[in-house]
C-alpha cells in the first residue's frame, strides 16, 4: 500500500502537475484552493477513469457559474472557497497507546452514550488487538452480503469494480447543477458509499458505514449512492451517535437513492458533528443534498434523521415520487442548543398517480439557537389522487431561541389532499415540576419530555440506534435549563 501510494505520488508530480504546481506533494495535503489541477490530482490519486475526471471537471465548470444560496434562515461568515483544502491523503489515524491519551470530554460523552470500552478505543483510534472482534464481525457481514449478491463498498472501490453502475446512476437523482453544494461535491468528492440490492433481495441486516472500519475516513465531501432493484429492501444507517470531530469546517455531502418497482429504501441518519463550543465558536457547517427517487410503481423511500450536531445544518432529504402508488416519508428530529442553527426539512415531489407522502418534523430549540423547518410539497398535474400529511412541531426551551416553519405547498391537481399541521410549544414548568415531584431531577425530566415529544420519529429508527439516539438527545440538551 505504502509503495503504491508513493509511486502514484511520483507519477502525479512528474506528469500531470506541470501547471505551476509548486507545492511539496510529499506532504499529505494538496494546497488550499480549488482549480482544475486540484481536481485532476484528486482523480489521479484515486486512479479514476477518464469519464469520471471529465464529470468532475464539468461539474467544476458548472459550480463556477453558480452562487452560494442565501435563502436559508442561517447566518455565518462568508466562506472563502479558495481558502479550503480539497484533498488530503487518507493519512493513517494517529495511534494512541491507551484511552488515557484521549480527550476526557470525549470519553465522558462515550460513557454517557453507553459505548463499550472496545468501541471507545476503536472510535478514538487507540491501538488494540482485541478490537479484532469487530473486524471479524465485519468479515462475516461482508460474506453474508456477498451470498445475497448485495454490493456494499466504498465509492472509490465501486468506481473501480462496478464502473457501469456508477456511470449510469451517478448524479442521476441529484444533477450536478441542482445546487451550489451539489455541484461542488460533484467536482471534488473524495469518497463515500455505494450500495446495490439486487432484484427481489431483502437485505438481511442494517447496512451501516460503521462496519467498513477501514474506510471511515471519507472526508468532507462524501458521496453516497444506494440503488434498490425491483422488489428489494434495504435499511441503511448513516453516521453514529458518537461525537464526530473534524478539522474541516465545511461538509457538503450528496446522497442519492433509487428505488425500482416495489423496492423499499429506509435511510436513517444520526448526525452528531461537532456543534462548536458554548459561544458558537468552531463547529462544522453541514450543507448536504439528499434525494431519493421512487422510480417504479409501489416503491417506497423513507428518510429518518436525528440531527443534533453541527454549527450550521442545511439539509432537505427529499423524495421524487415518480412511480404510481409510490410512498415517500420524512421523519426528523432536529435539536439545536447554544448557538447552533439548523434549516432543515424536506421536499416531496408527487408525479405518479396515487402517490402518498408523510412528513413528521420535530424541532427542539434551546439556548440561543435557531431551528427552522422548510418543506415543499409539490403535486404535479399528473399526480392524480396524491396525498400528503405534514406535521411540524417545535418545542422551545427558554426564551432566547427561535423556531420557524416555512411550509410551501404547490398543487396542480385538484384531486390532491394535502394536510398540514403545525404546533409550537414550550416545555412547561408544570411538566418539569410534576416530574420533580415524582423524584425525577430536572435534567432527566427534560430528557423524558423531549424523548416523548420526539417518540414518533425515534420509533422509526432501528432498535439499537433508537436507544443510542435517545441518550444523544439527552446529551445535546445538557445544561440547557439553568
Amino acid at each position, binding site marked *: 500500500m505504502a509503495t503504491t501510494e508513493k509511486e502514484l505520488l511520483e507519477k502525479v508530480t512528474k506528469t500531470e502537475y506541470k501547471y505551476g504546481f509548486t507545492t511539496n506533494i510529499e506532504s499529505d495535503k494538496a494546497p488550499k484552493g480549488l482549480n482544475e489541477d486540484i481536481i485532476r490530482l484528486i482523480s489521479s490519486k484515486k486512479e479514476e477513469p477518464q469519464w469520471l475526471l471529465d464529470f468532475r471537471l464539468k461539474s467544476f465548470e458548472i459550480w463556477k457559474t453558480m452562487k452560494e444560496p442565501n435563502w436559508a434562515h442561517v447566518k455565518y461568515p462568508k466562506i472563502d472557497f479558495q481558502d479550503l483544502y480539497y484533498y488530503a491523503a487518507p493519512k493513517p489515524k494517529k495511534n494512541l497507546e491507551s484511552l488515557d491519551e484521549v480527550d476526557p470530554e470525549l470519553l465522558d460523552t462515550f460513557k454517557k452514550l453507553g459505548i463499550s470500552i472496545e468501541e471507545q478505543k476503536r472510535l478514538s483510534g487507540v491501538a488494540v488487538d482485541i478490537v479484532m472482534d469487530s473486524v471479524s464481525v465485519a468479515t462475516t457481514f461482508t460474506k453474508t452480503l456477498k451470498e445475497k449478491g448485495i454490493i456494499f463498498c466504498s465509492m472509490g472501490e465501486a468506481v473501480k469494480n462496478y464502473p457501469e453502475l456508477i456511470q449510469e446512476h451517478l448524479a442521476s437523482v441529484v444533477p450536478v447543477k441542482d445546487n451550489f453544494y451539489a455541484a461542488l461535491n460533484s467536482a471534488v468528492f473524495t469518497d463515500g458509499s455505494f450500495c446495490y440490492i439486487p432484484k427481489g433481495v431483502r437485505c438481511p441486516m442494517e447496512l451501516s458505514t460503521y462496519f467498513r472500519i477501514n474506510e471511515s475516513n471519507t472526508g468532507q465531501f462524501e458521496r453516497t449512492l444506494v440503488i434498490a432493484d425491483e422488489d428489494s429492501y434495504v435499511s441503511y444507517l448513516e453516521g453514529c451517535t458518537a461525537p464526530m470531530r473534524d478539522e474541516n469546517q465545511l461538509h457538503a455531502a450528496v446522497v442519492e437513492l433509487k428505488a425500482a418497482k416495489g423496492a423499499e429504501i429506509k435511510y436513517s441518519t444520526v448526525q452528531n458533528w461537532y456543534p462548536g463550543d458554548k459561544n458558537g465558536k468552531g463547529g462544522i457547517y453541514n450543507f448536504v443534498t439528499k434525494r431519493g427517487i421512487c422510480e417504479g410503481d409501489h416503491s417506497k423511500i423513507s428518510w429518518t434523521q436525528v440531527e443534533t450536531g453541527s454549527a450550521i445544518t442545511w439539509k432537505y432529504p427529499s423524495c421524487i415520487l415518480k412511480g404510481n402508488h409510490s410512498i415517500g416519508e420524512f421523519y426528523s428530529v432536529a435539536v439545536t442548543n447554544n448557538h447552533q442553527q439548523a434549516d432543515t426539512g424536506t421536499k416531496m415531489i408527487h408525479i405518479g398517480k396515487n402517490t402518498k407522502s408523510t412528513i413528521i418534523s420535530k424541532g427542539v430549540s434551546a439556548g440561543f439557537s435557531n431551528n427552522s423547518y422548510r418543506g415543499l410539497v409539490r403535486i404535479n398535474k399528473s399526480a392524480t389522487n396524491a396525498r400528503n400529511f405534514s406535521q411540524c412541531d417545535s418545542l422551545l426551551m427558554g426564551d432566547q431561541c427561535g423556531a420557524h416553519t416555512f411550509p410551501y405547498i404547490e398543487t396542480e391537481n385538484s384531486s390532491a389532499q394535502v394536510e398540514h399541521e403545525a404546533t409550537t410549544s414550550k416545555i412547561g414548568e408544570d411538566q418539569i415540576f410534576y416530574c420533580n415531584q415524582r*423524584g425525577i431531577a430536572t435534567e432527566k425530566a427534560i430528557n423524558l419530555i423531549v424523548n*416523548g415529544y420526539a417518540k414518533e420519529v425515534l420509533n422509526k429508527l432501528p432498535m439499537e440506534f433508537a436507544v443510542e439516539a435517545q441518550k444523544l438527545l439527552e446529551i445535546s440538551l445538557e445544561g440547557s435549563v439553568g
Partner: protein
Amino acid sequence: MLQIKNLEASIEEKQILKGINLEIKRGEVHAIMGPNGSGKSTLASVLAGKEDYEVTNGSVLFEGKELLELAPEDRAAEGLFLAFQYPVEIPGVSNINFLKTAINSIREYKGMQPIPAKEFLAKVKEKKELVELQSTLTNRSVNEGFSGGEKKRNEIFQMAMLNPKLAILDETDSGLDIDALRIVANGVNKLKTKDNAVLLITHYQRLLDYIVPDFVHVLYQGRIIKTGGKELALELEEKGYDWIQETEVSA
C-alpha cells in the same frame, strides 16, 4: 413526621400563607378544608417545593430534615408525595416509563440498584388492581387524553407505586363519580399503615366518610383558624365557613 412552624409564603409579592402551624404524626390522617383561594394548594405546592413560591418565614421539618432546603425531587425521594389538583399531561411518555424512571430515580437517591423488570411489572399489576385502573391506561402517555376522573385515579395509582411516607391529596375527590370515589378512597385506606400519613385537601365531607380523618383543619385566608375532629367537617358542611369566621373572630 411533619412539623410546619409559622410558615409564610408569597407569590408575586402577594402573601398567601400567613403563618401556618401544623404537626402530622405517623399513622395519622389530616384533612384541610377551606374556601376557594384560601391557600390550600399553595400550601401543598410549597411543601412539594414549587419554585414560583417564595417562602418568607417559617420552617418545615420532615422526618427530622429541613424540608425547605431540599430540591423537589429529593423531597419526593424522602417520601413526600403530592397528588395534584390538576395533573399535567406529558405527551409521548408512557405511564409505565414515567413510573419506572421515577422509581429508579428514588432508588438511586437511596443508593439502591434499579428495580428489576420483573419486580416492577408485578408491582404495576398489583397496584393497578388496587385502584382498579384500566389496563390500557398504563401504556398510554402520562395523563394525555385522560378524563378528569382517570387523571385523579392515576395519581393514586402513582402514589401506590411510589409508596410515600406522607401523601398530600389535593382535591383528589373532585371530579370523581360515586363509584370512583369509593374505589380511590378504598385504595388510600389500603395503603394506609401505622407508619405513613395522609393529608387530604377537600371541599366535601363525603370523602371523609370513606377516609376518616383524625384531625380536620380549616384554612382561611392563609391561616389555620380552627382544628377539630371529623365532626368538624360535618359542622362545616351544615353551617358553611361564615359560621367559623364569626366564631373565630368573636373568640
